[in-house]
């Protein structure tokens, strides 16, 4: 005789799942975070383009898009507060909502860092003055963007495996950052100080973007598994 636990059945008389509106709101929240992540991704791509071409117009687009990213963060945070107050979520729902607050803050920060690089557009000529320095910055931008996209894929696919990979960080970024510092020290000539300052501004921003992607990985591991150890990893 097969027994059916009632917990596996839809509960409402019309066959719809219980708290359907609330569940739909949570799903919307997930999608909105994904959308915000895509907007940040677009700005990261603009940042990389500005780094290579110094297009001031593209930098302007990035600045405008960042305002939208900021507005999304405020809106999603308010929505999370509303859900917390109204629905008293627990377990995976609670983890999702508190994680969205954290994730959107990280996304907003990554957006700001992308903008910091994009705003160097008028000085892009300085960044290309040294071939070695520019190659390192370009490589850092590629790695940071790749790392960020992995975090975005982990969120979209709810993948613990990908989140684990993201949270492991990128040792290569640390190596490149160290090499960048070395190259900056070797700069010579009239513009050396200006080049060094712009290069370090860009380099540090790219390195921090990578760090924030790592934090996203730890947060996603917590979100998917509920293991509080990943919260500790997040603040390391």
């Amino acid at each position: 005789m097969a027994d059916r636990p009632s917990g596996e059945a839809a509960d409402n008389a019309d066959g719809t799942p219980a708290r359907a509106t609330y569940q739909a709101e949570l799903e919307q929240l997930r999608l909105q975070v994904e959308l915000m992540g895509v907007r940040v991704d677009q700005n990261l791509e603009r940042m990389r383009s500005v780094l290579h071409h110094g297009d001031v117009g593209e930098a302007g687009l990035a600045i405008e898009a960042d305002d939208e990213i900021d507005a999304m963060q405020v809106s999603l945070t308010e929505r999370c507060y509303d859900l917390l107050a109204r629905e008293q979520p627990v377990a995976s729902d609670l983890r999702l909502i508190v994680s969205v607050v954290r994730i959107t803050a990280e996304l907003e920060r990554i957006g700001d860092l992308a903008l910091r690089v994009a705003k160097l557009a008028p000085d892009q000529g300085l960044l290309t003055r040294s071939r070695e320095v520019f190659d390192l910055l370009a490589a850092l931008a590629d790695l940071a963007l790749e790392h960020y996209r992995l975090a975005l894929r982990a969120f979209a696919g709810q993948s613990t495996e990908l989140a684990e990979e993201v949270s492991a960080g990128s040792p290569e970024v640390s190596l490149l950052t160290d090499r960048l510092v070395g190259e900056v020290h070797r700069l010579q000539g009239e513009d050396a100080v200006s080049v060094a300052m712009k290069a370090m501004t860009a380099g540090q921003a790219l390195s921090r973007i990578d760090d924030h992607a790592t934090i996203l990985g730890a947060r996603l591991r917590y979100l998917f598994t509920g293991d509080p150890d990943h919260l500790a990893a997040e603040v390391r």
Partner: protein
Amino acid sequence: MSSDPTTVTGTESNVSDEDGESLIRVPEPEVRATTVTDESTDEQHAVFDLQNLSVYYGPFRAVRNVDMVVRRHEITAFIGPSGCGKTTVLRCLNRMNDLVPSARVEGKILHHGVDLYDPAVDAVEVRRRIGMVFQKPNPFPKSIYDNIAFGPRIGGAPKSDMDDIVEKSLRQAALWDEVKDRLDASAMGLSGGQQQRLCIARAVAVEPEVVLMDEPCSALDPIATSRIEDLMQEIKDQYTIVIVTHNMQQAARVSDRTAFFITEVSEAAQGQGGDQRTGLLVEYDTTETIFSNPADERTENYITGRFG
């Protein structure tokens, strides 16, 4: 073995209270491992050890195969949808189900290692040691004083001690300051929240070891509910509390451990036009675990409101 004064001691396997007074004489109980996950041993702290407990009302099996340990000086919450057997299990803990003629219990409920349903156990004494507070406040149509004094009088407490017992009980229930000047007034004139605290005072007046609460706040407003919840925290150092609640936030707020029950529906019975529903314990763990990261998907679905 444990130095806990309420554990089974001596060759006659008596249950002793903290003064060493023998209460129930029963055969040697068996001790076995339990399913609760915790660092400390259950033997030391178990007040109740439910072993493969099933409860029937006539041919109808209301709850099946419950295994759990209720621990001393903890608040244990039973949650789950209507009809899942929470109250049935709760009522087994002080043999209230004995009062239902068709009720029958299979498996064991060990109270400090002693089988509560052993014929040698005195059910009246069990109910004295294991008090109960019901869903709807049920004060007697007597004075506030007499409501509290009722149990101790029956228990033979000296008249000279009665004033102290009444005051102590009302203080424990956080009601003394509100009623000390009108102890002779009818209990029926108290508010719902005050009546429920009076019932708690009445339950603790006979100095039980355990207080069972069956949805004690379901008829109360949020302020009165909050006072009862505060009260539970204040008295848990002295009593072991088991509470049935439909309010999951309440379970999360007040309890140390939570047991989640569901109803399983027999498809065979459904096919015959019947509707055989049986309660089942799905998960029992610390309240923190149940409400943050439950092991069973059915628990997650219930506490997040996806069914229920």
